[in-house]
């Protein structure tokens, strides 16, 4: 199977039953992406496929051959943090850190969705060209990522700060 992962071509041989999550972690050593519930409920495994956020635990790797996958390792590293990663530090967007890679990948996907005008459950007007970047919108759009430490307010503060930066 061939993939592009964090802009690099990758070839891997694995059992057809392997999830994209297990491929990344167990076969390719990309352990930034985390396994939480392994059933699509927590969002810890969120990665970007061709720029769109998905739950890699519910994805069979074989279905994603030829696609471009971005994990937390492709978003920034310790020497060169992405602005969103800085914002998580500045706003206490984590405690144990286990959900953080998924939160950040999810937020990157969410910003792209907001920018192209995708409405959400709380968008008042479906006809509006671009939804407002309100706290309520961010909260609804991030509901697929759980934090059991309860850092949600810090997470939203971080995303809000980084998004506003982004929107300027």
């Amino acid at each position: 199977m061939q993939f592009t992962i964090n802009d690099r071509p990758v070839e891997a041989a694995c059992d057809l039953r392997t999830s994209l999550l297990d491929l990344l972690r167990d076969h390719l050593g990309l352990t930034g992406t985390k396994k939480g519930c392994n059933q699509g409920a927590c969002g810890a495994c969120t990665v970007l496929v061709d720029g769109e956020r998905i739950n890699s635990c519910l994805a069979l790797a074989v279905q994603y051959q030829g696609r471009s996958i971005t994990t937390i390792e492709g978003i920034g590293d310790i020497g060169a943090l992405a602005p969103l990663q800085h914002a998580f530090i500045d706003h206490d967007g984590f405690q144990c850190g286990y959900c953080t890679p998924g939160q950040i990948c999810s937020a990157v996907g969410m910003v792209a969705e907001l920018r192209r005008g995708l409405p959400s459950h709380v968008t008042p007007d479906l006809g509006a060209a671009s939804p407002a970047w309100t706290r309520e919108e961010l909260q609804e759009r991030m509901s697929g990522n759980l934090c059991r430490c309860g850092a949600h307010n810090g997470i939203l503060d971080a995303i809000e700060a980084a998004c506003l930066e982004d929107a300027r």
Partner: protein
Amino acid sequence: MNPFGYDRATNAPEAVSMAGAAGARYLGGGTNLVDLMRETVERSDRLVDVSGLSANIREDEDGGLFIAAAARNTAVAEDQRVRTRYPVLSRAILAGASAQIRNMATTGGNLLQRTRCAYFYDNEGSRCNKRNPGEGCDALGGFNRYHAILGASDQCVATHPSDMAVALAALDAVVHLRGPAGERSVKLADLHRLPGDRPDLDTVLSPGDLITGVGLPPLPDGARSAYRKVRDRSSYAFALVSVAAVLSVKDGRVDEVRLALGGVAHKPWRAGKAEAALRGGPATSEAFARAMDTELAEARPLSGNAFKIDLARRTAVAVLENLAGNRT
């Protein structure tokens, strides 16, 4: 998860021929099937990947829209024509699951997702007639807050989990199929079954049948549509009760009404009795409430979900009042 063979189809006839008469399972976004296979509730030995088939959304000859089966939930909810002409559908999709799952899930797969009844999922320790026919149902005397109040049987009280399908039921959508015997179509409202004594069968599909798309007929002139979902938390939860409605009012009277309820039955529940009671009558709150009482007269609550009867009535009345402009 049991080992399986995997084929990736590039068009519908190829997919049907790959699946064969024995009926491999078609794999869309995998958000439900992969999970069920991991839990060994589903044990398919052959998967045909149809996620790369047509995802097109196009104008239909009759003035409606045709949504190809591999269109992702996000793409359907985002489509400008859906948002403008069928807001009930955009709203229903956006009320379901999470952003990640909506990005993965296909239209066909959404319709064929299976119940989230916890006893159906619990392959190790619970009895379930849907999973193992004849075994018994632990939901009947168990935790049944999320279960059916309409159309259930003594074999199964599970509910269908889809929000999208409830909107499609109210839109009179038509499901296009291709099977070993060729193409045919079935009304969305007739796609899913009531459990009866065969709760293992969710739909009227035969092995090898593939959903190729969903057709949305144009709405009647002047009709407005809306979706409201009531759940235990404000996001990312299945419905306790949901209501999809299409309403057209002329001179204070109901010209056309289509009403479907979610979270209350084994299938999206088209409220035909309420519709019949409303058509041609006054578009008032009292008439809406009376119509829902008629619809819900046959409701049979379980130990943990009697609240759903009143909740369904009040939610439907509120949605109809909003659509009629009786309140904001």
